[in-house]
């Protein structure tokens, strides 16, 4: 299918009118044409960007975090498989993602089911629109799936989504891993994700990983301030991250024993 995108004016008008259109976002009806006066000049159809169809997979109604995470993984794989012909330049286009979230009924239904039942004051803005870099990667209902796929797709592994599976360990890890410094470098994101998997394997069932990983992230950021991480391979970064988390755990255990 060929992709469409909002004009800048249409995007600005919609984002200004979020409060006024709140009921429309909550409903089933197609409302864009009427809202824009049936003029059809509020969007453009790309003549060149051709992608395969993607239908979001989700179970309707309330979901716990674990179910959301597993559905995110499935949708990331399907979305990235379908939209893989997009270049990062095209996939950074806020008008395109915002248009898809508004104009395609099955995407609207998916967003409404996933986020609108417990909507906050900024839910419409964050999930239907792309407003900036972080919103592109973490918030918009569709663009986040593409970028998760793009940043973790591993050509060298027969399971191209092996890293994506680790990324979706849980929602917190997913957000923490996707911070600016990690995502800038494929070797870094790969090394970090493999270290998370290794470290999770040695943790007890009732031990959380988030606390260790957050400290590890700080350590890696300090390390990267004086060292060129782009020169290190994924295995080297994996070793740095894993060893640091193991050391933290040992320190924690030794403090516990002393008490």
């Amino acid at each position: 299918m060929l992709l469409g995108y909002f004009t800048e004016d249409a995007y600005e008008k919609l984002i200004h009118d979020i409060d006024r259109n709140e009921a429309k976002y909550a409903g089933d009806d197609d409302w864009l044409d009427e809202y824009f006066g049936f003029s059809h000049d509020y969007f453009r159809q790309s003549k060149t960007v051709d992608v395969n169809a993607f239908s979001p997979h989700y179970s309707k109604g309330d979901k716990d975090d674990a179910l959301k995470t597993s559905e995110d993984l499935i949708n990331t794989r399907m979305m990235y498989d379908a939209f893989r012909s997009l270049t990062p330049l095209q996939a950074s286009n806020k008008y395109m993602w915002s248009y898809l979230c508004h104009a395609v009924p099955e995407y609207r239904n998916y967003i409404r089911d996933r986020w609108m039942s417990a909507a906050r004051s900024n839910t419409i803005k964050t999930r239907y629109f792309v407003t900036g870099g972080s919103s592109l990667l973490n918030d918009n209902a569709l663009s986040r799936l593409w970028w998760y796929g793009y940043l973790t797709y591993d050509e060298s592994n027969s399971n191209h989504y092996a890293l994506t599976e680790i990324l979706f360990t849980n929602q917190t890890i997913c957000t923490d891993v996707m911070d600016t410094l990690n995502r800038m470098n494929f070797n870094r994101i790969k090394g970090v994700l493999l270290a998370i998997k290794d470290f999770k394997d040695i943790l007890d069932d009732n031990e959380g990983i988030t606390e260790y990983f957050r400290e590890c992230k700080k350590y890696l950021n300090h390390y990267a301030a004086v060292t060129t991480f782009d020169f290190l391979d994924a295995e080297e970064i994996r070793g740095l991250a894993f060893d640091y988390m193991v050391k933290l755990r040992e320190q924690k255990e030794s403090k516990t024993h002393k008490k």
Partner: protein
Amino acid sequence: MKSQKNEFPNPVLAAGRDDYIAACQFGTVFDPEKIVVTSDDIIIPISYSLVCNGLQQLIDDNKALAVIGIKSSSSSYSRLFIFPKEETAMELHIPKFKVVKRIELTGSIIATAAMNDFKCEGEFNDLYFSSSTFEIRKGDVLAKEDTRIIYVDDTELEKPIASIFNINRTPSQEDDVMPDFSGDKIEINLKEELYNLYFNFKDFNNGSLRRYITSVIVYPVLVEAISKICEFYREDLDDGSDDKRWFRAIEGKAQKLGISFNTYQDSTTLLANKLLGDIALDALKSFKDTLDSEINNGETQMLGGVD
């Protein structure tokens, strides 16, 4: 962009640091005029110069490399380009569909492997390091330069100047109008009543009053923005505002009028009026035309005169 003053655990040869004696220098050079954009790549010819016997020896011994780091954070692109050992020049081929908005370019010398006794005999600043040696890890930075920014998509700068403004409804603010210059676009925040009037007038009669309301809302903010740019150059500020899209758009439009902010001494009101296409006269003319047509269409009855 100024260099980040990182606390390196070893001496680093860089402008603004005095870890080395003054005779030692490192830097890269490229000519923006020689950047070529092909169907797939942005090609940047670049060279480096290094004046430091100790670091040069490390390169000759394969213990260090001269590299260029290219980053485009909007698309999470990051790649290291390595100068061939015997050469001080190369071409960077950057895939243009993988970078967005801008690329950051930083030259550096990095260690290829761990070293236990890194030193540059007679070239470290004696005051701090004397004859000390340092432990170095693979990839550690030994020399670096300030990051430079290349804007790869300035098509938005070609749009009308009005495109650098966002008009927002912000019911919570106390004042009717509050501009915010901190982002890429200038946010003009309006209190509820003013915002509603603005939007109603904007679309009134197929936009016939659009120029008039631009003169009321946008024009004074543009004057303020120009004043900020003048101040930036006059005071030689280093607040990063020259990196913002609104700053570059105004500067670019002014350059097309032959105006350089380095030397601009005239009125900011005058320049804002020019950049908005003689908005002052145009706004009042469009207001008069709209008023005339409203009066002449027979639906409006004159009940009294004006002062």
